[in-house]
């Protein structure tokens, strides 16, 4: 024990005690750390509902007309409908076809073919049998459209792509005489989510 006291005294003699004190003094600033308050950055991301329609094939359809008879389209229009919607905001997705001017669904040089004589069907949709494009719906002009399918939206199909074939024909079985010639028209296809 006396030996230890002698060693300390000897170390003090060498001047080590001030060094140890200096080391304590240098450590003093770390104990004074100051932190600010916390500010938050709120992140918000919105993905809007999407709804698209495309004609995969059959964008051009030909008919050979015959008075008093039915002329089927040369091909079916393959319609692809895709959506990504919020089931909490969207109840159903519906596909429609319409003509801008129902009285002239197809126009000729001197005479027009009204949508009354243009019939469509979607066997995987709503009109499974040929039906004139004469409905009044939220899409297209009055008396010039046809609902092609209606699908209720749930969590299971909120993000979906479906393909449907639209068959068209021109039914002249009860039409007035149609002048010989060429007739052209455009059928609009649109999807609506609500």
């Amino acid at each position, binding site marked *: 024990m006396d030996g230890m006291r002698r060693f300390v005294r000897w170390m003090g003699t060498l001047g080590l005690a001030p060094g140890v004190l200096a080391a304590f003094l240098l450590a003093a600033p770390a104990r004074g750390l100051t932190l600010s308050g916390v500010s938050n950055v709120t992140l918000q991301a919105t993905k809007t509902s999407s709804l698209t329609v495309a004609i995969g094939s059959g964008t051009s359809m030909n008919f050979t*007309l015959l008075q008093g008879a039915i002329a089927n389209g040369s091909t079916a229009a393959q319609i692809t409908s895709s959506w990504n919607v919020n089931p909490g905001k969207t109840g159903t997705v519906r596909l429609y076809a319409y003509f801008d001017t129902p009285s002239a669904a197809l126009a000729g040089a001197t005479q027009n073919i009204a949508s009354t004589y243009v019939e469509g069907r979607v066997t995987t949709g709503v009109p499974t049998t040929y039906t004139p494009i004469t409905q009044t719906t939220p899409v297209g002009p009055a008396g010039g459209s046809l609902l092609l399918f209606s699908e209720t939206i749930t969590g299971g199909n909120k993000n979906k792509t479906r393909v449907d074939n639209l068959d068209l024909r021109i039914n002249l079985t009860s039409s007035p005489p149609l002048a010989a010639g*060429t007739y052209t028209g455009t059928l609009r296809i649109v999807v609506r989510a609500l």
Partner: protein
Amino acid sequence: MDLRKTVRVAAALVVAGFGFAGVAEAQVLSNIANVNLNASAAQTLTVAVTSGSTVNFTLAQGAAAAGDVSSAISTTWNLNPGLTGAVTLFGYFNTPSSALTDGVYDIASTYVKGRMTTGSVASYTAFTQTNAVGPANGSLLLFTEAITGANKIKTRSDNLDLQVDLTASPTVPASTYTGVLRIQARAL
């Protein structure tokens, strides 16, 4: 008091209106895809003998024998005036030298005459014309009608009267003679 009640009801209706408007705003429409439709109606031209498809004659040498009935001919067309100038109806025999025959003796089309009072031949005329239809010297033009926008789709009916005129023929043996007169319309 009534006024206040009315105002409250009106306010409620406005609020309800905004509520409905809110539902409408949830509508989402897709892009529009197009299906192009091309239709063609071909020109048509038909002819039919609606009555008098069999005509009988009692021949008499040196005289004209009228048919016992007229042939009613119905001609129907649906034509493009931009492509068609006129519709013409013809009657013709396949073999003019034997318009009618008993198998041994022939009566030539020279002695068979036709008339269409609503057409081009107001008086009896022999089937000896050369036309675009039928053999040379064996036909008769019955009517010609120019096509315009007004008559591009039309059906017309005409009566064809026939006679076998033996006033200037050589002696025709007593017998039964048969033949077929062809009726055809042409649009050009």
